């Protein structure tokens, strides 16, 4: 883990109309660092992670990814998106394309990788997420867990250096959560820089370098997992952890 931050949020503010969603959000992620963000629904955690690749615009403050500042410059946005993979809660696979085509689409059309090479890489990634036999199927024919693993492989096909996970297991049936988390843990073990919004505290304990707790648009607490889980500073964090771990 080197010391230079690859993702930096400085006093980020965002409003939806009059509603203040992100308030003075500061976050710094180093290369190879795994950050897990948790918090009650509506706390702005998804919005924050979506600001990192500009799916949402922030209105004040600065966001830097690989030292490139996100703003209205489309070239900068495209450069950042090439290097930042994202996995969504609802998978968002392309239903009209096969699994293999889902994986090769961006490399061939964005990075102009030759077709054969893109397909080789896609098959390697499908091996890695353990579903090479589904390559010719359409996403609609796969289970939720399989679809989410395809979505992870699709993001990895662009060879990103940073991965964003926006509640990747929230839409899954309980028995499929593990197969997705296993893939994510493996990815973490390989040194990928990751920012994950999730409520899977077991996963957080296993991989997180830093825990972030957000509520009402603010970062309430930021700490290493040992300290975060055993000795949270804020009452609000303690209350939240009590609720989700109590079950």
């Amino acid at each position, binding site marked *: 883990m080197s010391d230079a931050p690859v993702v930096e949020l400085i006093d980020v503010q965002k409003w939806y109309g009059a509603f203040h969603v992100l308030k003075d959000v500061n976050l710094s992620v180093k290369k190879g660092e795994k950050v897990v963000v948790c918090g009650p629904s509506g706390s702005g955690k998804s919005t924050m992670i979506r600001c990192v690749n500009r799916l949402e615009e922030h209105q004040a403050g600065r966001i830097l990814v690989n030292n490139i500042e996100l703003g209205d410059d489309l070239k900068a946005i495209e450069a950042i998106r090439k290097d930042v993979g994202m996995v969504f809660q609802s998978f968002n696979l392309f239903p009209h394309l096969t699994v293999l085509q889902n994986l090769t689409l961006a490399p061939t*059309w964005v990075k102009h990788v030759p077709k054969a090479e893109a397909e080789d890489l896609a098959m390697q990634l499908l091996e890695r997420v353990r579903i090479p036999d589904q390559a010719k199927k*359409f996403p609609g024919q796969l289970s939720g867990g399989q679809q989410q693993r395809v979505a992870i492989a699709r993001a990895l096909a662009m060879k990103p250096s940073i991965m964003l996970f926006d509640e990747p297991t929230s839409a899954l049936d309980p028995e499929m959560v593990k197969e997705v988390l296993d893939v994510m843990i493996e990815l973490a073990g390989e040194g990928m820089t990751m920012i994950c919004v999730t409520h899977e505290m077991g996963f957080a304990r296993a991989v997180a370098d830093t825990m972030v707790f957000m509520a009402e648009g603010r970062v309430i607490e930021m700490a290493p997992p040992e300290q975060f889980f055993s000795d949270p500073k804020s009452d609000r964090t303690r209350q939240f952890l009590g609720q989700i771990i109590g079950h």
Partner: protein
Amino acid sequence: MIKPEDDIHAATAAADVEEPSSAVVPAPALWKPLGWAKSNLFDSVPNTILTLLALFLLWETVPPLIGWGLLHATWSVADGTAGACRDSAGACWALMGEKNRLMLFGVYPYDQHWRPLLATCIVIAMLATSAPRRFWRRELGYAWLAAIVVVAWLMWGGVLGLSYVETGLWGGLPLTLGLALLGIVLAFPLSIVLALGRRSNLPAIKAICTGYIELVRGVPLVSVLFMASVMFPLFLPEGVSIDKLLRALVGITLFTAAYLAEAVRGGLQAIPRGQEEAADALGLPYWRKMRLIVLPQALRLVIPPIVNQFISCFKDTSLVTIVGLYDLLAASKAALADPEWRPYFVEGYIIAAVIYWVFCFSMSRYSQWLERQLATGHRR
């Protein structure tokens, strides 16, 4: 006469409707046509009255129609006059044999009719070839380019031994087909641009596209054609004139595009936001995102309204008659101007209607087939 299998299905269906939750085997009586009629057509007083009324109306209309159209009809005349038709009580289909060339090709020079005939056959053959999915290849594009060149040469002539025929003399089925096809082919991409523009975040583009769509949808096609043919030339500099046919084509294209754009926009709105976000997150630029992700899904969803619009466009070409072009319908009308055949205008219009119907029905069936073909992506 009801076939036995139909009878069984009908009886089973009737039993299902009556007792949806029970597994009782239908009584043997229901398996007979009489039993079916009793339980479906005469099961209550109002139903009996309606059945009898329907039977009476069918009796009053169908036999006379068959008598007029088939039994007493005159199919051909020996001497080229309508004399034989005047003596019969039936339809005068002989009109078709005597006037078909005028109806199909309008005022195109009579001795050159083989040219529009051949051109029409080429276009129809190309359409048939383009239909199956296995022919959707690059070669098909080249074949179309070649076909267009040949068709243009046949219709215009002027080179390679064919005499020149100006567009003002084109007419009948080739004109209708040409206007409809070119109108559809040109309007379709324009409509996609308009639909995307109307959903754009850029205020100027959005305003232009919305304004265009609302303006054009708000006026009748007749007035668009009229403006294109009468008013538009007034704004052109002295000595410059644009072909009448071209002006009509532009009018039809611009008009159809506005309607199609709204159908396409409906499809765009049905695509979940997440699809665009996933494409954005992968770094796909706007046009690639639209071409590879959004449009393929959106257009498949709106095949029915798009084909609806195509069919509408095909039939609307008959309005070019008001700017003095002889499309299929106008040519049929012209054929009936002959005093000898004027009494048989009903037959003339029926023939024209059947030709329109064949083309529209083909489009409709093809679109249904296409929908099934393209639905595989969502198959579970």
